[in-house]
């Protein structure tokens, strides 16, 4: 039973470059979430997927951030023209569907995160 996996585990990039972060959720989990965690801060919600659609994009900090999910499984978070303030740990989580409704707010299983450093 594999858990949520993310890649790369670490990414160092130069300001202005684009980066792509990948998340593989637990097999069968319908809901997928992206969060950002800055040093010493709580989790900052970015975006939520139900299947392949994203009903809630309210947390994306700017139009440089985008995410997609294909096949109801793998998701990628893309940050264009990275800035130094984008440096953080980007966490992905998934949760199962229950009673035919996305189990949003129920137990979310987190991946190990991608540590992004923008120089």
């Amino acid at each position, binding site marked *: 039973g594999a858990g949520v996996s993310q890649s790369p585990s670490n990414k160092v990039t130069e300001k202005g470059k684009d980066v792509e972060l990948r998340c593989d959720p637990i097999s069968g989990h319908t809901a997928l979430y992206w969060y950002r965690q800055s040093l*010493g801060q709580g*989790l900052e*919600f970015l975006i939520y997927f139900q299947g392949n659609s994203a009903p809630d994009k309210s947390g994306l900090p700017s139009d440089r951030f985008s995410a997609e999910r294909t096949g109801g499984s793998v998701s990628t978070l893309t940050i264009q023209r990275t800035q130094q303030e984008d440096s953080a740990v980007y*966490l992905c*989580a998934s949760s199962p569907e229950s009673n035919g409704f996305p189990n*949003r*707010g129920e*137990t979310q299983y987190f991946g*190990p995160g991608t540590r992004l450093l923008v120089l």
Partner: protein
Amino acid sequence: GESVGLHLPTLSVQEGDNSIINCAYSNSASDYFIWYKQESGKGPQFIIDIRSNMDKRQGQRVTVLLNKTVKHLSLQIAATQPGDSAVYFCAERGGLDMRFGAGTRLTVKP
């Protein structure tokens, strides 16, 4: 409670002692709460949850207490071990939104 800024609240305990980590929440409509443990360099790990129709729930060496009157949640760890050293944070669900606290850093001294 939640912390703002770069410095997490810290709790230092002796190995074998009991630990109590506290969390204050703001939404009186929150109906579901989770405690997570996050070790250095790893993603958050689910520890225990509790629904608002309960005031206490026990797991293995952990107990969560919920006081809805004062909107307070606590995590008790019995016989704290070095492997318990981590950041612990609470999460609350109000409606469809889940909010996470910044966490408390627990350090266990041998």
